[in-house]
């Protein structure tokens, strides 16, 4: 099974957070690596979506959808830095 990266979850993340999230820089709470969410290791298609740190494999994000509501866990992220703007889906 080939492992994908956070890019494939861009649609889900944008639905959940209301903005583009793959460029957001996440600091892994386990190992301290800082990397864009788009670079994370993505596990999806199962009961939920899991994004893991590319360096140490610790869980960064878990998203499930329960009866139409999103359950989101970001506890694996110590800090999240997002560039300003990026609000419009296609605009500059």
């Amino acid at each position: 099974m080939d492992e994908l990266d956070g890019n494939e979850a861009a649609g889900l993340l944008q639905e959940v957070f209301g903005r583009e999230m793959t460029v957001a820089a996440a600091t892994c709470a386990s190992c301290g690596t800082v990397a864009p969410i788009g670079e994370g290791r993505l596990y999806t298609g199962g009961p939920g979506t899991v994004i893991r740190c590319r360096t140490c494999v610790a869980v960064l994000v878990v998203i499930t959808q329960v009866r139409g509501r999103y359950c989101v866990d970001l506890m694996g992220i110590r800090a999240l830095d997002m560039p300003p703007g990026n609000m419009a889906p296609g605009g500059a």
Partner: protein
Amino acid sequence: MEGTAVPGRLTWQVATVTAVTQETPSVRTIGLGVPSWPGHRAGQHLDVRLTAEDGYSAERSYSIASAAGEPVAITVERLADGEVSPYLTEDLQVGDQLEIRGPVGGYFVWETADGGPLLLVGGGSGIVPLRAILRQREHSGSDVPVKLLYSARALSELIYRDELDGYHYGVEITYTLTREQPAGWTGYARRVDRALLAEIAWPAGKDPLAYVCGPTNFVETVAGALVALGYEPGRVKTERFGGTGGR
């Protein structure tokens, strides 16, 4: 009814197939008419959702093959054991409808202002977002120099060959055919490795911006090699496509 009434809020929209172009025997480009399309950037993708008559649904993501300002199009490769790709590459016809969500993605995006020099490395259908980037550069009149390395199994599997061969100014394209080569082929005939990249990629000293897209193993090998060649990790952008059976 408006599609995306709130900026940033994504919703599923109904798109209509406006054109289909057979690129290779197993690859098709699908042009889409989307009533409330907000515009997209080169490198972004969109999510597709198919619903069967019994309510079963499947979702997949496909890179957008066109530049900002061009009509939306996706290029889909038929995977042998795929569930969605055989439908999109064989059954779907002009006039049919699809649900799509997008555009999505912000990490694997190139805008003219991002500059270069650009190194684009694609494996198989990983060429799709890179082609969007090339079109973006062309349409914006950018003179950023580009080197494209495109790995495919055979000549017959190269997507957009004629279009790529049409780029001359500031675009240098290298192909490598890994499984079979035509008689008289003098180009590369092996999988992309560090030695190959060392020969054709921009030297790290030029502070290049790299986009690497394709199957996971391909991306890992190439990205690792570029960093080993001195590329700034933050300037090596990666997008991994599923391998077998993913789509």
